């Protein structure tokens, strides 16, 4: 993963979005768990609801910055998946994380100006940013305006189904966050990648 000279990976708009998103997601996770277990939470129900709603809107606005930013800048190129080695490439990366890096093997996909994410990382970012986050935003807004939700899905309440789906997606994002933060420590030094996302240079 090491490169001899530094590359300017993260432009200002991307770092602003990332910071805003990180803060919003953490608040959403904490308040989301609080709403499910309010009796053992340090946040009151009303504060948890308000914080969850406000953070939800902030993350949504942030997502728009991310989405539009990726279209109008060349940042989108890092998200393009090549059909060649569709399965093989991420597997190679998993092998590196599970075995290779403990046996002095070199990273199979070192980062460069052309490659900001390794294949496994790219797949996860695509799933999270183009599938899970949009769905969590849609279900979140549906729950904010529950009257727009279909009343019954078979024998279940539409709101109930939406809420379960929203919580499951939120949970997926929480697990992603743990892995995301941990993998970020696999750099030249454990804090190297964290510095990069602040100053933009990798």
């Amino acid at each position, binding site marked *: 993963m090491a490169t001899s000279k530094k590359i300017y990976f993260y432009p200002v708009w991307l770092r602003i979005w990332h910071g805003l998103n990180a803060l919003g997601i953490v608040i959403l996770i904490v308040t989301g768990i609080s*709403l*499910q*277990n*309010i*009796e053992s939470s340090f946040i*009151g*129900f*009303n504060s948890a*609801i308000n914080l969850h709603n406000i953070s939800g809107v902030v993350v949504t606005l942030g997502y728009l910055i991310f989405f539009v930013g990726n279209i109008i800048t060349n940042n989108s190129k890092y998200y393009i998946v090549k059909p060649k080695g569709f399965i093989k490439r991420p597997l190679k990366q998993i092998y590196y*994380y599970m075995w290779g*890096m*403990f*046996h002095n093997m070199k990273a199979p996909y070192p980062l460069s100006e052309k490659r900001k994410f390794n294949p496994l990382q790219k797949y996860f970012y695509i799933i999270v940013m183009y599938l899970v986050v949009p769905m969590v935003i849609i279900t979140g807004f549906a729950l904010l305006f*529950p*009257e727009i939700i279909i009343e*019954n899905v078979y*024998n*279940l*309440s539409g*709101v*109930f189904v939406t*809420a*379960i789906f929203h*919580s*499951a997606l939120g*949970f997926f994002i*929480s*697990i992603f966050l*743990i*892995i995301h933060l*941990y993998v970020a420590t*696999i750099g030249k030094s454990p804090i190297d990648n964290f510095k990069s996302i602040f100053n933009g240079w990798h």
Partner: protein
Amino acid sequence: MKYRLFTLISIILFCTLWHHSKAQYYNDPENHECLKCHSGQAYTFHNELMDLEEKKLMNPYFILDTVALALGVHNLFDCTDCHSYEYVTYPHASNLKLESLITCLDCHGGDESFASYQFEKIEEESQKSIHYQVYGDNFTCSKCHSQHTYAATARTSSDVLEIVDYSNKMCLSCHNNMNKYQLVSGHENPQLIQVHDWLPNQELHFKHVRCIECHTEIVDGLMVSHNIQEKAKAVKNCVECHTTNSRLKSSLYKYQNLQKRSETGIFNAVLSNESYVIGTHQSPFLKLLSIIIFLATLVGVATHTIFRILKK
């Protein structure tokens, strides 16, 4: 001759009894002695004084819903079982307005066969309620529970929304009706939408929970709390319901018919799946699954970290 007389008497008796027994069936209002007038907007009668067939409008408050009447718990009774028999003549005698009607406890009180309904306890609780405190004996059971149409929906239905709707309509029949409200209170009814402005997702709350969930003091021994509290004592704290130990479990979801229903199904939620209450709808299966996934992630991260340290 004797034989003929017996036959004649038998025929007359049969016709009278047949006519009378038919009168008990509310599902044939046109041929019912009382309902032929009291089930429609207008009624006709023969004005003997003028020798005229007259048609008049029925007082809307005296028109009975015959479908609800036939489905109500008292559908086996005829009108004159409770009202004076003199009502069968028209015009009704004016002093009949003063008749004292039997109350619920007159029939249901102290009767072993109704013991499970706890009528005495209900009366005791309702006498503590704000309705009784302000309006006294005038506030009878029938102000909320019409003897004509009452059906035990909450005990029999497995549909939460139906139970909520039926219960709330009892409250709204006065609280959303200026004339009926004023008749008892003497002043205008509060505007319910504005009064409940503070409640988020008001419409959903109104459809999914009963008014009495917040406006009564819950009594453990009673299925439905009848101690309706004054406005100042109404529940305004969201967490009373929105928690795993929700107030709704000892009120709306107290009914076994609803509990049985909610215990089935893949989500195995504590409350019914027809409604969703934030904080209360916890699925033990999903909770366990999420804890396992969360712990597995932490174990995975810790193991990887240990290997990284060891292989450094």
